[in-house]
């Protein structure tokens, strides 16, 4: 697969179709990291393996503006896994990314591994091939994952008080470093509520109430928009089980509105629309 990826990257860069290929490269200490390839001679840095955990779609926003003053914004190519492709669809639907400015190299995916272990999100993944691409690399794997929300339901069975205790215990170690937000393709507000001081929402304190507020606020903003890539949980230095929040929302949005974010680039989030005369269980 990697030869095909590199060949396409070289072709796109040589022909000037794109200014940059966003992919993966070997980093230090056995880690893979996002790579930004600007020159055809650098395409051999690109890798594709089970350690390519990052959702690169988050980087598209930094190419929304021209690289040099007076130029058009650059056209870029990007490698997307199935999960990443759904967040790309969300951004396309929300007009944050222009489809013709992005060449999408879709990757058939058997799941990412950390220390050899298949990631939980990959065990749940029902897609396995991207939902949007210009070039598909690889073939759809035989096995697909399955989501049963078992852990979410376990939490649902608690009383609200027990759940508040659970969250305050988990969020206690949050340091509000905002890595979760920064790694999220759908968190693209130019000024986050968390940092807005006028009106004064959170203020600057890093304390438990504000941690609770921040994560609940961010979750609300992602309702109907979170495509489940799990980048937030992955980057959290304190291993806060954020997927428990986001998958709960995915579950509720699906139950209430029969909607899953990022399946296509056209259908808006149910929270951006409504049906006349509808009555919802409040």
């Amino acid at each position: 697969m990697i030869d095909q990826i590199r060949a396409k990257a070289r072709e796109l860069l040589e022909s000037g179709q794109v200014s940059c290929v966003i992919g993966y490269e070997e980093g230090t200490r056995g880690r893979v990291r996002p790579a930004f390839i600007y020159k055809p001679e650098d395409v051999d840095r690109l890798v594709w393996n089970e350690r390519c955990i990052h959702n690169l779609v988050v980087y598209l926003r930094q190419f929304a503006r021209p690289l040099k003053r007076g130029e058009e914004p650059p056209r870029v190519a990007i490698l997307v896994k199935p999960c990443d492709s759904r967040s790309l669809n969300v951004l396309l639907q929300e007009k944050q990314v222009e489809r013709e400015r992005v060449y999408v190299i879709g990757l058939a995916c058997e799941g990412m591994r950390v220390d050899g272990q298949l990631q939980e999100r990959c065990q749940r993944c029902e897609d396995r091939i991207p939902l949007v691409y210009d070039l598909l690399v690889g073939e759809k794997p035989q096995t697909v994952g399955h989501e049963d929300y078992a852990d979410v339901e376990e939490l649902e069975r608690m009383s609200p008080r027990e759940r508040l205790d659970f969250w305050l215990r988990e969020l206690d170690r949050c340091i509000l470093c905002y890595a979760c937000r920064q790694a999220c393709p759908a968190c693209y507000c130019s000024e986050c509520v968390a940092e807005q001081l006028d009106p004064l929402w959170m203020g600057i304190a890093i304390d438990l109430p504000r941690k609770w507020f921040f994560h609940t606020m961010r979750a609300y903003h992602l309702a109907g928009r979170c495509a489940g890539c799990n980048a937030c949980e992955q980057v959290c230095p304190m291993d806060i089980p954020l997927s428990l929040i986001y998958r709960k929302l995915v579950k509720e949005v699906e139950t209430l509105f029969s909607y899953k974010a990022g399946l296509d680039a056209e259908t808006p989030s149910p929270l951006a629309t409504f049906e006349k005369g509808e009555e919802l269980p409040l």
Partner: protein
Amino acid sequence: MKVSTKDDLMAWLDRLAERYTLIAPKDVEGHILYRPVAGSEEIAFDFTKAALSPKEHFLPSTQVILSIERKGEGIELKEPSLERERIIFGIRPCDAKALRVLDALFLEEPIDPYYAERREKTTLIGLACREMGDECFCTSLGGAPDDASDVDLMLTEVEGGYAVQVVTEKGKAIVGDLPLKEVEGSPPKPIVHEEKVPIPELDAWPQHFNDEYWARLADRCLSCRLCTYVCPTCRCFDVRDYPSSDDAIERLRAWDSCLAEGYRRIAGGYNPRPTKMQRLRNRFYCKFYYYPKDFGPVACVGCGRCIINCPVNIDIVEVLRDVATL
């Protein structure tokens, strides 16, 4: 060397906990954090590195620096202070050295009274590392896994307990009733990495300020605050009021990060450091050029936390190697 058994040590810590606020490494849902403990049974003795350094007990992530109360027409200001003396048990040599780095800034005139009070009222009991962690590079910055220079009392794990070294008067003052036995020999030397990381000289930095290197490094930076918040020497802070009741206000000081997009943005919207390249570059220049020029020490102790945690593998050791060869 003088040795205490672990049982004696724990009993002694329990006695100390009655007179002091005892802060010690604690397993918090799988993460080692320095937290106040009621007794020694809560302490995690076996760990490589805490998720956060004890910096948060000297420059807390949030602290009230002024209580502002409206009294009729007037306003009354109160400065909160620490009630109890504290002991931090189990601080690693690198994290202790980080306090020396912070001292250079906060204890320079005009002295920061909140930091100074916390330093003054805290006794540090160090715990030497048996070996350097994979990401550690303290020895490249003049530190060592068993460096006792920045603690008041140093403990090193030995057979049958802990070797105890009294370093300062403060340490001497608390060691009093800890039963110690004189044992032949000295504590084992820690296992260190053979290879050292080159730390570029001060003069090496200015010439690289405008290098393309920083833009390419920053391409993958997410502009989160992670590296600065887990760093034991990063010290940027924000100050802001928050109403605590209808007629009381707290002036809060909280951690801030030079990597945050709005860090330098002034009222009206102008942002002198709008690109993440500028912000990321500032972090490295601050640590290895500005801070040493302004305050003396390099603002990095080689704890490796930023390396462990950076979600996109911005590896300070790699950066130092790169700058050395640029």
